């Protein structure tokens, strides 16, 4: 399934001073996948909804923080 968050496991040294964050994440928001927005994309149902999402088009909406799981939290 597509997600706007990618996860990676950084190298952990036995000499690292802090307790390790085993999984780290970064954000890959929708605009990096769209070269040119196509015409006629679906829009939010109301102006109010668009305002509170910060965009008129769900295809450009990017949730933050990661709605599934914040990957860079400790364990």
């Amino acid at each position: 399934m597509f997600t706007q968050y990618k996860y990676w496991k950084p190298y952990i040294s036995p000499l690292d001073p802090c307790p390790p964050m085993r999984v780290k994440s970064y954000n890959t928001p929708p605009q990096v996948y769209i070269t040119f927005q196509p015409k006629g994309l679906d829009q939010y149902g109301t102006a109010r909804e668009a305002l509170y999402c910060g965009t008129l088009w769900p295809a450009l909406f990017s949730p933050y923080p990661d709605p599934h799981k914040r990957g860079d939290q400790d364990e």
Partner: protein
Amino acid sequence: MSKQLPPEYYQLLEEIQAVDFVLVELNHYLNTHPDDYDAIEQFNNNVKRSKELKVQFEKKFGPLMGFGRSYSNYPWDWDDTPWPWQV
């Protein structure tokens, strides 16, 4: 000193912010998609809606725009509080 704003102020303002937000989005979009007829039609419909809402708002809460883009009441009320960062 300053008048307290009724809930209606916030409701009407939010409605204007929503319509004007759609206009901002469509304006940016049309700058890169100048031949999207449906988007232009939607833009113009929202221009009309925005103007209507602002007439309604300004009757109750005073002018929204300076330098003659809104009519003044008597006495001059452009300088009345609250300013946007105060509400």
